């Protein structure tokens, strides 16, 4: 059982508060959606959690270990994986090699100067690609894949580090609707199978309400609602944020 406890996270940019006092707890088995209008602070929130940005104040603890102040690669090593809103894979490598890189990194074998990288951890990489349905494209360059396929490679890369917590920034952006649901169904399966704790942002409300176990609603840097999908959907403040603008 893992637990990511976020308390009173704050961050401003040039006097403008992007994230103002966000607190929540993410546990194994959670598939927690973070939603909100553009500019609500979702991406900033993510960057604070994985160490890309430093918060002005607040704490992020993974099973009691303080993550604030650690660089992204240390936070990753502690078991927090992440996927990016704008896909970030190693474009000059094949699909399999992308996953192999993560496995090599986890095994601390990156400084090897002799044995070809392509021959190391290939089998486990293929197994992970099989899991996300990308095994048939394992030897294609990542730079030529369709957008939705890159997203699936990202998921395989995130899984390769055997995380306990997975942060997914718009995992289905740019995918066709059917693909979106398939990817989130897969994610939900992985959550059950491996006891993952997943936090994701998402624009597609079908995805959010179809798969999330709980939903957080962020508006102008603050959490305005938290609860089950049905509770959140019924919340008048949430409705006004999405449809009204003038609360």
């Amino acid at each position, binding site marked *: 059982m893992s637990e990511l406890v976020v308390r009173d996270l704050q961050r401003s940019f040039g006097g*403008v508060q992007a994230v103002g006092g966000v607190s929540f707890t993410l546990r194994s088995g959670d598939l927690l959606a973070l*939603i909100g*209008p*553009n*500019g609500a602070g979702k991406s900033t929130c993510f960057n604070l959690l994985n160490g890309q940005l430093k918060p002005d104040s607040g704490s992020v603890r993974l099973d009691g270990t303080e993550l604030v102040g650690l660089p992204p690669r240390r936070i990753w090593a502690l078991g927090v994986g992440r996927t990016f809103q704008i896909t970030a894979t190693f474009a000059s490598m094949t699909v399999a090699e992308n996953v192999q890189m993560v496995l090599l990194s986890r095994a601390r074998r990156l400084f090897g100067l002799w044995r070809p990288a392509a021959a190391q951890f290939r089998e486990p990489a293929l197994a992970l690609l099989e899991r996300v349905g990308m095994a048939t494209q394992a030897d294609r360059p990542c730079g030529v894949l369709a*957008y939705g396929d890159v997203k699936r490679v990202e998921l395989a890369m995130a899984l390769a580090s055997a995380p306990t917590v997975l942060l997914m920034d*718009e995992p289905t*952006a*740019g995918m*066709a*609707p059917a693909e979106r649901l398939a990817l989130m169904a897969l994610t939900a399966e992985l959550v059950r199978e491996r006891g993952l704790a997943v936090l994701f942002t998402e*624009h*597609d*409300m079908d995805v959010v309400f179809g798969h999330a176990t709980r939903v957080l609603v962020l508006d*102008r840097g603050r959490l305005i609602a938290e609860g089950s999908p049905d509770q*959140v*959907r019924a919340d008048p403040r*949430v*409705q006004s944020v*999405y*449809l*009204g*603008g*003038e*609360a």
Partner: protein
Amino acid sequence: MSEPLLTVDGLQAWYGRAHILDGIALTVGRGEVVALMGRNGAGKTTTLKAIMGLVERRAATLRFDGRDLSALPAHRVARLGVGYVPEDRRIFADLTVEENLEVGRQPPRPGAPAWTPEKLFALFPNLAEMRGRRGTRMSGGEQQMLTLARTLMGNPSLLLLDEPSEGLAPLIVRQMAEAVRRLKAEGLSVLLSEQSLSFASAVADRACVIETGRPRWTGTMAELMADDGVRAAYLAV
């Protein structure tokens, strides 16, 4: 019936390899305010950028005021009288308010209202008080007003307004709506992208709803307000 001021059909656009728009179609008539609506990520911002020529685009039809825009770069589109107000404001922070306006200045154009800094300061009194101030020292609402004023200095006949109410305090949102209505009264046509139904219903004549880069619904604003099904399918939570 005369040709609409802006006609878009079969508009495709890409960000790098990501195919964002797939067949957007819409029209804006003279003196009309049209709201381009849809959820986050539906492609509203990209649609405006594609019309302007700021992203890689292709279109079956992209005509403005009788001219084909589809092969023109952004500065040529702007000089034909299309004014673009970006969502992220992008004021020139190192320049003063007056200098920001100067960058936008273009010669007056027949058939479009002609603006001067003085006329704009009358429209946005807040800006008048800070004409020598640099953009770095302005609030979000003031920046939004300046972006709009700067674009108006080009004397456009069509305004592309990207998410004008986003991230603004309710009071500023009302001022913004008032400004859009005034511009319409001056004879300007407006295409605005908007997530907020209340803002759109306050200013727009018609709405065009898009999702995942495709057109889904178009009709008058009143029809949209009456159609719970469309709102639930494409706009609501």
